[in-house]
């Protein structure tokens, strides 16, 4: 057990941290998106992807529901909704 411990890069993909999300989750409306990529840049999980306008989407497997993407979105195109609601 002692000595250098090494692991393969980016192996944390197995940690499904989305289970931490208990209260709110972001909903991407995909209507007024201008592809400014602010949500991609601010996401602490680094789990939002997308290229064109209105294609951005978080990976809910990892999203912890902090709400920063909804906060920084200049077009208010992301809203926080109750976890489990079908809205």
């Amino acid at each position, binding site marked *: 057990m002692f000595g250098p*411990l090494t*692991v*393969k*890069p*980016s*192996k*944390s*993909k*197995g*940690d*499904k*941290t989305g289970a*931490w*999300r208990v209260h709110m989750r972001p909903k991407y409306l995909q209507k007024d998106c201008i592809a400014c990529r*602010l949500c991609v*840049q*601010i*996401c*602490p*999980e*680094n*789990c939002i*992807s997308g290229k064109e306008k209105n294609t951005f989407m978080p*990976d809910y*497997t*990892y999203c*912890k*529901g*902090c*709400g*920063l993407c*909804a*906060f*920084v979105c200049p077009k208010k195109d992301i809203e*926080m909704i109750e976890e489990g609601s079908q809205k």
Partner: protein
Amino acid sequence: MENNILLKPGHTACAGCGQAIAAKLVIEAAGANTIVVNNTGCLEVFTTAFPETAWNVPWIHSLFENAAAVASGVESALKYLGKKETTNVIAQAGDGGTADIGLQALSGMLERGHDILYVCYDNEAYMNTGVQRSGLTPFDTNTTTSPIGTKSTGNQRPKKPMPEIANAHGIPYVATASVAFIPDLQRKVKKAIATKGPKYMQIHVPCPLGWRHEPGATVTVARMAVETGLYPLFEYENGVLISKRQIAPKPVQEYLKLQGRFKHLLNNPDQLKLVQEVADNNIKKYGLKAEAQQQV
């Protein structure tokens, strides 16, 4: 999900962690040809819980105090192999690992002139072990080792001037940044990477758990720290102040009221005055006040 991202999801940072945002922005600005050396701290613990790692670049952790020393060795080895021109070396640590425990190794690295970018993620206390005060904890902060009470208003010592200490080594580049100003942060990292010699960067990263604010308020809190003058953003090049972010100063209450760690100050005008003095001194020292209107 894109495959070329350098700090992968699945790390175990708290929701809304400022350090996770900053670490991602720094490594993206530095690019894939980078070797990262990490001190012990939140960043090390949440990205590399054995047997997993979120890093997609070569990454090494040794002990709490010696990120700068290990990075010096990595840089020297790269030089010997003739690979230094194509590889960046980043040493990174939290504020405790920089200002208290790792200061000796950092000072040695700066003095020996290694071509390394040292990044300090400043969340203003030892957050990983349960919010103990560090050298970079600001004045009047409520932490577990500087608790408030009838005789105490929190941490009695001012924040250690780490950028000035680094600058006193006569190094080519010193900068402070904040997660609330992303383009500014990434520009500074790119500039530091392009500069030869030792570089020091200090990034203000809110910690929702230790500062006691909502996870979604990370950006608001970081922005307000800059706009009140409590966290000045500036750049030193070869010892000369070359740029600073100018502000229309807001009263410090705007920043303090957002966080539970400063809650005790809001009904204490005497202490508020002292905290305002800290901000005013910063504004005067770095010339932060915008002349006519707020600049970008």
